């Protein structure tokens, strides 16, 4: 079996400006954030980002990497919206293709099945059809005569997903409760990357979880990259939950240009190891601040 292990640098080097890139995960859950951070450090620009959107979309917008976003929503889950994505839309900085999230699924499915479109009822009558004037309907060739939305294939130049475990040959294992649409992102893409918490030997995968968790076959991957903490600050259960404290820090910093510059310098202008170290430090600082506030409140109560 081919050894598909590679690095974040090689991942970024295989991309070019103007590409359409699919990002796996969902909202603020199991996002390939180490790969997103690698893109942020690169000189790539003018990207079309296709995503069940979370902070991946927000960060790429904040860094000016995005020409167009294709999405059904952009959310941080515990915080309803992403501030950078909002700002990019509200300043008119990006083009938007907003579709129903089921249409989005069918777009990926069509691309992975190599058909030009798939029919669906979803979208009919809504402004999805008017804000995306290129969308068309199709009439059933059978007796029913139904007129349905023809959701076009969302073909991707590249896709990246993040999983809990993988082997060097590119089989991936998702140990959390939801594989989301990761398999379809890979199926829809020409260049297919998978980051993982840990690379293990193929014969060790079965000890990590049952056969249903081994849901990414090596037929779907070209490169596998070990990135411990690679979904941070999004959730990557059961390895770790969402770092809610850090997510709040991300949102708070977005509201102020100076605070955002400091956030970028501390967390994003450094390499992946630097990021992981800085976020641990930041967690300690938040814990210390919380303890200090608690102590202050207790002494006030005692006074």
């Amino acid at each position: 079996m081919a050894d598909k292990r590679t690095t974040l640098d090689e991942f970024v080097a295989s991309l070019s400006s103007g590409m359409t890139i699919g990002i796996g995960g969902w909202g603020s859950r199991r996002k390939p954030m180490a790969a997103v951070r690698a893109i942020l450090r690169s000189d790539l620009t003018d990207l079309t980002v296709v995503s069940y959107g979370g902070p991946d979309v927000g960060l790429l917008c904040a860094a000016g990497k995005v020409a167009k976003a294709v999405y059904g929503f952009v959310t941080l889950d515990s915080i309803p919206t992403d501030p950078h994505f909002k700002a990019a839309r509200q300043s008119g900085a990006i083009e938007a293709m907003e579709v129903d999230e089921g249409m989005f699924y069918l777009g990926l499915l069509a691309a992975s099945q190599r058909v030009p479109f798939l029919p669906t009822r979803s979208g009919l009558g809504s402004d999805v059809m008017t804000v995306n004037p290129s969308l068309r309907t199709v009439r059933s060739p059978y007796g029913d005569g139904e007129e349905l939305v023809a959701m076009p294939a969302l073909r991707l130049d590249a896709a990246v997903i993040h999983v809990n475990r993988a082997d060097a040959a590119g089989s991936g294992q998702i140990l959390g409760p939801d594989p989301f649409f990761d398999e379809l992102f890979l199926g829809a893409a020409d260049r297919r990357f998978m980051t993982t918490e840990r690379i293990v030997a193929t014969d060790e995968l079965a000890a990590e979880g049952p056969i249903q968790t081994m849901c990414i076959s090596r037929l779907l991957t070209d490169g596998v990259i070990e990135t411990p903490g690679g979904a941070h600050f999004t959730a990557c259960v059961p390895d770790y939950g969402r770092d809610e404290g850090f997510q709040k820090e991300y949102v708070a910093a977005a509201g102020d240009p100076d605070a955002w510059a400091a956030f970028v310098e501390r967390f994003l202008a450094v390499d992946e190891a630097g990021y992981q170290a800085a976020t641990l430090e930041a967690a300690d600082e938040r814990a210390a601040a919380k303890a200090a506030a608690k102590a202050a409140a207790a002494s006030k109560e005692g006074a």
Partner: protein
Amino acid sequence: MTDTTATDITRADYCAVACAEVFRGDGEVMASAFGTAPALGARLARLTFAPDLVLTDGDAALVDGAPPLGAPPASLVFESHMPYRRVFDVVWSGRRNLIMMASQIDRTGNQNISAIGPWGQPKAQLVGVRGAPGNTVNHTTSYWVPNHSTRSFVEQVDVVSGVGYARAAAAGPSATKFHEIRFVISNLGVFDFATPDRVMRLVSVHPGVSVDDVVAATGFELVIPDVVPDTRPPTAEELALLRDVLDPRGMADREVKA
């Protein structure tokens, strides 16, 4: 059991009961409910008059019974695996009954959760249309608006996310085939579209709210019957379930005051 009397009934209780009524008579369908009152309503229906209703854990599973709000994941009894991709099989099969929220809702039942203002450069980008376009043309949908005002009840929504009656009719038979906007429930009252031209009608007001209050808070002309009843109160059993079982910490009262 808590000693409850009619005077203990809060506005939030009326909202929860009104949300529960959304699920009456539907049998074995998957309930999805966004917001606190809808989450309570689905659970209340499951424990009383809709025992076949199927509830989710809000993540990737169907759960047995009706877990209290904020129940720890370890306490849940799973019935079935329901990851997002499979949710679409349910949506498109029609075996779902949903209460979504609405940043804006209009006279013919269009809902907006996408953006406020012009599409190319909105004044406020919201979460996005999410599944609203597909939900509304595939299965019964209702809406929950905890902040009824002329900003949320508008003549025409800015971006049609959930499809209302006029838009579905204009889109043709494939859009109307499975379309039903059952109820709109706000912190002031209950509304439906049981009018000849399928425009919003006031069904009931929550006790303490007058018809004039509703009219003043609504940015379009409602159909108002000659007699507008009060929203029904919870039964003693329902009130006990709300207080003692489903929402002992009173989260619903934080969503809706009074």
